[in-house]
């Protein structure tokens, strides 16, 4: 299956794209997505420890199971406000 992955802030700058598509086995979890991401975009690996993921605009844990076509957002530590 494929999932769409949205990149923000430093990740967006590093990868140079707002959206990428990842190929994952059916029933893959967020944990597996993170592994795949590190394989395909080694530059991202340093960010993984502080990165959380969101699906359908909600933060999800590593055990969360993905479905075909899911929109996953990679959320670095947030720094809005002033």
């Amino acid at each position: 299956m494929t999932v769409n992955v949205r990149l923000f802030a430093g990740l967006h700058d590093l990868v140079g794209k707002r959206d990428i598509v990842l190929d994952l086995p059916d029933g893959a979890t967020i944990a597996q997505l993170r592994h795949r991401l590190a394989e395909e975009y080694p530059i991202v690996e340093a960010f993984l420890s502080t990165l959380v993921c969101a699906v359908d605009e909600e933060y999800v844990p590593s055990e969360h199971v993905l479905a075909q076509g899911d929109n996953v957002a990679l959320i670095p530590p947030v720094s809005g406000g002033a």
Partner: protein
Amino acid sequence: MFAVIPDPLDPAPLVQAVRRDEAGAVALFYGVVRNENLGRAVRYLEYDAYPEMAIKKLREVADEVQAQFDVTAVGALHRIGRLEIGETSLLVAVSAPHRREAFEACHYAVDRIKQVVPIWKKEVWDDGAEWIEGHIPEVPEHTAGDPAPAT
């Protein structure tokens, strides 16, 4: 009223939106781009956001504030894109019957916005730039109701 927009923020409609006949107090917070951070001169800021989710999270913070404080209404606007020194990045307005609750709830709302809303700022200095890493948002526990992880 909740929005995440690239345009200058206008407090007047936000305050109007939270006004209630039973509210004797409105606390309005301006987050403003300042000229230094941690001793380093800042030239300008660049804000990135996941706007749809950011608006959703602003609403959730407002719901949380409404549940925890005796307030009548909450609204928040966040600006994104390039902001110069002195420009307003965040406006949070809280109306309440009395001033104590308006102040405390508004302060709490700003704290929570900085913890959970997917917005990021890049500081641009004379000699470089850096995306600021603030808070790691809490992630809900994996619950029994979720589909079992594939193994």
